[in-house]
């Protein structure tokens, strides 16, 4: 069984480094991290390795430092990685990204399962997974909370508004993984040692991580980057900081604290029947 997991390096929003005064990101200076949602996708892919002996391939697209997230994935037990990096990918929107990733996935093999994070924390679109599935012509299960595989069939539970849904679908399928109780464990000692070796030894690295560009995967540059993107960010505006004027109640007896607060915040009018 072949499991692919798509991961992305994103700016760390809890760090102030690399955040310009207008709120935009200086990606060269920003502290980088693995997209938090992708940790769940990674855990899901590793589950197929533990339970079904799947070979797990991690794919990322981004500037050269994005190789860091492949090392991180390998430390957790991923078998091999692909870094798609090319200057012509600058300004890719989700449509162009999904096209590039589809070409990359085809180049890397024929996966039975593709796991993606639900969305990224820098784009927040949740679009690339479904767009990639459409490009590859395979079904998708989004918002997946839990799954198992039996006889080539994926049985999955997905979140929907106010509940959940259980579905079955034959492989191959693309799954976007919702945050769930399944947490990614710490890297294994063996994985960490493997990464140490790969970082020291370029020949060993090249056997595990392929660094590829648009030409390698036969992608049409006209469909990538700015040229392949039907949308652009035309303007951005910083959203003002809120707050700074919290009315704080403390020190009195609890009943009078609560009374003061509920009156000030006009809570009572929300109580009772509609």
């Amino acid at each position, binding site marked *: 069984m072949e499991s692919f997991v798509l991961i992305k390096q994103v700016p760390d*929003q*809890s760090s102030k480094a690399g955040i310009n005064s207008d*709120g*935009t990101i200086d990606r060269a200076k920003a502290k980088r991290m693995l997209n938090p*949602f992708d940790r769940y996708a990674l855990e899901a892919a590793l589950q197929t390795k533990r339970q079904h002996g799947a070979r797990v391939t991690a794919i990322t697209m981004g500037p050269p430092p994005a190789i860091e997230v492949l090392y991180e994935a390998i430390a957790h037990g991923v078998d091999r990685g692909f870094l798609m990096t090319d200057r012509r990918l600058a300004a890719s*929107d*989700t*449509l162009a990204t999904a096209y590039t990733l589809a070409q990359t996935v085809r180049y890397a093999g024929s996966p039975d399962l593709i796991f993606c994070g639900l969305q990224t*924390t820098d*784009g927040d*679109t*949740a679009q690339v997974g*479904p*767009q990639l599935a*459409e*490009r590859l012509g395979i*079904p998708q299960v*989004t918002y997946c909370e839990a799954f198992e595989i039996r006889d080539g069939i994926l049985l999955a539970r*997905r979140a*929907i*508004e*106010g*509940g*959940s*849904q259980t*579905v079955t679908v034959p492989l191959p399928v693309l799954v976007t993984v*919702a*945050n*769930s*109780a399944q947490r990614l464990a710490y890297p294994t000692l063996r994985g960490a040692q493997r990464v140490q070796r790969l970082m020291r030894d370029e020949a060993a690295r090249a056997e595990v991580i392929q660094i590829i560009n648009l030409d390698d995967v036969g992608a049409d540059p006209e469909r990538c980057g*700015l*040229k392949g993107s*039907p*949308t*652009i*960010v*035309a*303007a*951005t*505006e*910083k*959203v003002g900081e*809120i*707050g700074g*004027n*919290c*009315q*704080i*109640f*403390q020190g009195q007896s*609890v009943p009078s*604290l609560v*009374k003061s*607060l*509920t009156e000030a*915040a006009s809570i*009572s009018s*929300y109580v*009772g029947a*509609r």
Partner: protein
Amino acid sequence: MVQKRVLIFAEQVNGELQPIGLELLGSGRLLADKLGATLSALVLGSNIAHLASTLIGHGADEVFVADHPELAQYRTLPYRRVMTDLIKSWPEPPHTILLGSTTTGRDLAPRLAAHLETGLTADCTDLDIGPFEYSNSKDPSKSGLFRDCLYAIRPSFGESLKARILGPWKNPQMATVRPGVMVPLPWDGSRRGEVFQVPVQLDPSDLSLQIVETVRNLSQTTDLTRAEVIVSGGYGLGSPEGFELMQQLAACFPNSAVGSSRKAVDSGWIPYAHQVGQTGKTVRPQIYIACGISGAIQHRVGMDKSRTIIAINKDSSAPIFKFAHYGIVGDLYQVVPEMIRQLQQNQSQPQAHPTERIPVLQGH
């Protein structure tokens, strides 16, 4: 003259229209009027003919109804097939297509956009029509003055920025829109519109995914996007049992839900569906009561558009007190039970008329 259309996707569940469809009609009406376009609504399902008049009464000029047993419950591939077939049967693509940023809309819209090879802006909070002048030396083919473009405005980068996304080079221009943001038009029974049946031709490959079971049991306490009051618990609850107290406080309000911070979800105290924040849901209730939540940026971006934020926390230096509107510094296990007691006392007294519910606001 070719008909210019703004098309909205009206979600239904068990034959019942979801609020987002009417919200999209409200927003779509403004866009269509600015464009001089027809506002079209599309609804897919089984035994749903009765929905057309509702959609017309709320602003649609025409309604396309795809009625077929295989469409009874939403599934990506059959819905994608029917929608793309319909759009391709028109002499010209719609100017704009809008879907909701629900689990359905966010599943369907990207597939549709990829199939139509067009742009899609996610999770918009504002839409408009306007001109756009663009020149880019790296891609001169995109340069020029474009009239009547869709302005898709969305929060980005953890809600710290508002971005205006444009894609006038290709129609349809597409966007998904956050539930609860756009305002539906009031029902007008005198409105007239046309209703069309959409032919449904599915390929066997569209039906490979099967729904085993759909459970919607969480609506009372989990539908965070629709709740007027959200009571949220964090790691400061100390144990999963704390959520029973959150539940009791939420029960004081008729339209309420229980939320949570990521740390409480990661600790296994409450399911992910309750999580508010960057990796959970974005909410904007009238009142958000945060109990034992410190207010890290990842949580804040999911809830800081709430109309009134109330924080209860032992730690007076918790970041949440920097952006809450009201706060109690104290032990939530003393404060919350007292709050429940006082609210229940209140409940037995006559209620203010709903239109009089105008909370005292700070900082908005």
